[in-house]
Each structure stands twice: as structure tokens, then as C-alpha cells.
């Protein structure tokens, strides 16, 4: 084979031309899509009765749609948008800025809070701001007053000075260099099937007892949160999520999608993640469905909202 392989391929491919029937079928499908497009202006003319009928029809339609189809369709749109996004490159001297409002569970070791019998637990809210340019990272963390499930635990917490230990009411800034983020430096494949295989391999070495799909869900979420992936990788991550046993919990008209996945930690736990229409992770929760370790059932043991990463030129918090 001495010819340029590209030239051989070009010649082999020929010049396919659509028939009139092909064109008509394709145009009919497009016109159907155009005809069923959401048109907010027209809704203003709907009477309340018609609107109620529409709601019922939509609700029945949603019930009839099988879960994989709904999830795949919703995530397919997001994956396409993510893939077509402009790559975000950080110019020299600039930083990628993200702000996270989060609340996470604190469970002190047994005996740390003297005088309290049984398990102790509380939720600790904080704001986390991060400036990152690859070689340098600045973290500013503000910690707020905890939320308690038991007044006795609250009294003991303050009596033993745990608020100072947790830095409650304080804002701390740390500057870090030479950070190596294993997730960010790994050369992840951008083909969804190859990526799924790589994520399976990565998680299989974790030693966790959780099912592989759950670990992959957590790892994909970590990658979306912590690495500001390229458009191709973000798109592939979304497609991997569509292969997992996730449920479509919500989809808003602006394209935002919320997914849930349930598993037995133990206790039984339900995680949710919310993606915007471009595949950015904008919110996540982890909820225990059974009481455990002093935490009531249906408590969000982790809850976070994330801003979409933006390029900034200074290490000052951007004006809201």
C-alpha cells in the first residue's frame, strides 16, 4: 500500500447523494421537531383549563417514558452541548475561580466530646473559594456556625471549644504551590466507552466495598467538580453518567438536569447531582435515608452548590 491512505479513503467513499425520499423523510422529522418546539409566547394564550389538560398530558407522558430513554435523551443533549463548548484556557497571570457553598457532616471520634453518651454529629456549613492556574492555588474558606441534631451535643461542642477547632466564624486563606491533583493530571480518554473502562480500572483499585457503578458515579462527579475538564472529556463524562443506573429526578426548561442514584452505604443513601445545560456540575447532595450515627433519616449529609468556573485576573473575590 504505497498510496496516501487518506486519498484511498476519499476515493472509496464516493459521493453519496440523497434521494428525494431521503430528503422528504428527513425534512418531515425536522418539521415535526419544529412543530413540537416549546414556544413560551404561545402559552400566554392558553386558558387555565387548557393549561391544566396540558399538565396532565405531560405528566402521563413522563410516566410512560422509560427511565433509560429519559436519562439518555436528557444527558445526550447536554453531552452534545458540552462537546461543542469553547475550550477554557487560563491565560498567564489569570486564574480559574470557583465558589462553593457547602454543608458537610462532622462526626467527632467517640469520647472527643466529654459528657456525651452515644453518637455525636453535626452539620458544618462553609464557603469555599478557589483560584487555580495549574501551578498555584489559593483557597479561602469561611466557616459558619454548625447545625446540631441534639441540644446536648451543641452545648458540649461549645463547652469543649470545638468551635475554635473548626474555625467557626473565621475566614482562612491558604496559598499552595506544587499541588499535584491526580485526577487532573491523568490523561483520561475522551471516548465514552474508553473512559468508562478507565474509570472502572481506577475505582477497582480503591478498596471500597461500594458497587462499581456507584464508585464510578462518585469518580465522574469528582472529575466534573475538581478538574475543569476539557469539552471533550466533560462530554464523555456525561455520557458515562448516562450508562449508570441513575434516575432523572428533574429537568428544567433551561436544560438543567438533576440525577439521583441510590445505594446501601450502609445506611441507604441517595446522591443527587445537578448539571447545567453545558454539563457543569452546579449542585450535589448526599442524603441518608435511614437514621444512623445520631443523624436523623433524610438528612443531607453533604450539600453543595458550585458556581460555573470563570477566568479572573486577581486573587480578590469577584463582585457578585
Amino acid at each position, binding site marked *: *500500500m504505497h498510496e*496516501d*491512505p*487518506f486519498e*484511498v*479513503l*476519499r476515493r*472509496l*467513499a*464516493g*459521493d*453519496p*447523494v*440523497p434521494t428525494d425520499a*431521503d*430528503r422528504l*423523510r*428527513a*425534512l418531515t*422529522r*425536522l*418539521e415535526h*421537531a*419544529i412543530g413540537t*418546539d416549546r*414556544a413560551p409566547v404561545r402559552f400566554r394564550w392558553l386558558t387555565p383549563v387548557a393549561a391544566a389538560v396540558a399538565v396532565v398530558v405531560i405528566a402521563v407522558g413522563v410516566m410512560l417514558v422509560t427511565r433509560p430513554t429519559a436519562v439518555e435523551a436528557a444527558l*445526550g*443533549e447536554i*453531552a*452534545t*452541548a458540552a*462537546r*461543542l*463548548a*469553547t*475550550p477554557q484556557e487560563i491565560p498567564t497571570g489569570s486564574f480559574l475561580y470557583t465558589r462553593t457553598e457547602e454543608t458537610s457532616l462532622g462526626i467527632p471520634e467517640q469520647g472527643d466530646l466529654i459528657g456525651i453518651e452515644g453518637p455525636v454529629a453535626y452539620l458544618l456549613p462553609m464557603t469555599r473559594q478557589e483560584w487555580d492556574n495549574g501551578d498555584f492555588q489559593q483557597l479561602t474558606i469561611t466557616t459558619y456556625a454548625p447545625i446540631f441534631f441534639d441540644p446536648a451535643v451543641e452545648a458540649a461542642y461549645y463547652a469543649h471549644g470545638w468551635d475554635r477547632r473548626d474555625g467557626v466564624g473565621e475566614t482562612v486563606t491558604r496559598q499552595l504551590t506544587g499541588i499535584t491533583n491526580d485526577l487532573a493530571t491523568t490523561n483520561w*480518554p*475522551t*471516548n*465514552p*466507552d*474508553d473512559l468508562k473502562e478507565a474509570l472502572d480500572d481506577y475505582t477497582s483499585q480503591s478498596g471500597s466495598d461500594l458497587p462499581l457503578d456507584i464508585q464510578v458515579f462518585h469518580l465522574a462527579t469528582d472529575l466534573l467538580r475538581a478538574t475543569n475538564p*476539557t*469539552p*471533550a472529556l466533560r*462530554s464523555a463524562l456525561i455520557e458515562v453518567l448516562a450508562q449508570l443506573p441513575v434516575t432523572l429526578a428533574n429537568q428544567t426548561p433551561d436544560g438543567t438536569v438533576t440525577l439521583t442514584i441510590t445505594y446501601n452505604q450502609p445506611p441507604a443513601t441517595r446522591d443527587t447531582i445537578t448539571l447545567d*445545560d*453545558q454539563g457543569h456540575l452546579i449542585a450535589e447532595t448526599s442524603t441518608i435515608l435511614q437514621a444512623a450515627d445520631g443523624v436523623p433519616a433524610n438528612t443531607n449529609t453533604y450539600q453543595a452548590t458550585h458556581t460555573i468556573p470563570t477566568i479572573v485576573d486577581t486573587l480578590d473575590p469577584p463582585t457578585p
Partner: protein
Amino acid sequence: MDGTDAEVMEASWDDPSVFAEVFHRYYPTVFAYVMRTVGHPDGPDVAAEVFVEAFRSRRRYDTSYPSARGWLLGIAAHLVGTHYRRKARLRRVPADEAMEGDFADEVAERVDASRSTILTAMGRLRPAEREILSLFVFADLSYREIAQALGIAQGTVRSRLNRARTKLRNLTEFSNEHREGGREAPDA
């Protein structure tokens, strides 16, 4: 309507029916690309789906690009990849093997052995390389247009294409040598 693709796209945000103009401008281009990569019997369906997907995504079109050709072919490339992955899942075989088989089947009756060798070799490329190669070879997109279509850097396009070309050459040369060796073996 007249005007650039970007103007048509923008007009379709308020009047969806205008989007049909995009179909009339690019259906033959998209059809040819999809048929070259997917072939019969699924190609026409995939080509039709490209415009439905593009219509749903029209508000995300970057109107600083006057031509929608690269954007549409990027969507087409993505749907072609999805098509092969779906087929692979149905058959319970890896996507690469699914594509390799389809290419071999598609060309078996109309090309000679050396030509089917190169198509089989194409099926063995990494999906990302194949996606770029197909846009370059079958859609005649430039490096810049491929970068726009797939949301990657032009340098990445160049390096992946070079890698794909080298791999194709190596795979086809190996295959030819192997076949020639096989014929000579009985006489040895």
C-alpha cells in the same frame, strides 16, 4: 430567507420555522458525510437526526461563526460515534469492533482486498482519531473547522491526524506483508 447561517440561526430563535433554511442549505453535505461513515441502512436516519439535534441546540450556536457547516458536521460526528456505540451495546461487542465489522461489510462487495484492508484498519483507530479523520477526509473540513466542530485545539487536530495517517499506513503495510507472507509460506 437570505443572510449568513449565523443570521438564519439567530432568526430561528424566535421563529423556529426559519430553521428549515439550514436544512435546505446543508442536508446534502451532512447526508454525504454520514453515508460515508455509517452507510446503509442507518445513514439516512442518522443524517435526519443531525438536523433534529441541531434544531434543539440552535440557541447554543456561536453566532460569531458565519457558517454553520462545521457546527453541523460536529454534531454529525458525535451522532455517528453514538450510533456505533449503540450498535456495539446491542451486539455486546466493543464499539471499535462494531465499526470495523460495518466498514468491512459495507465495502466487501465493492472494493478489492487492498482497499478493504485500509477500511478495516480505519476501524482499528482510536475513536477520537477516527472522528477527526472522518471529518478531514469525508467532510473536507479544515483543521480550524474541525477544531471548532469538536471543541478542541487546532494543534490537537493536527497531531491526531498525523497519528491516524501513520497508524493507517502501518496497519495496512503490516496487513499486506502478513498476507504476502501467508501466500509464500507453503513454498517455504
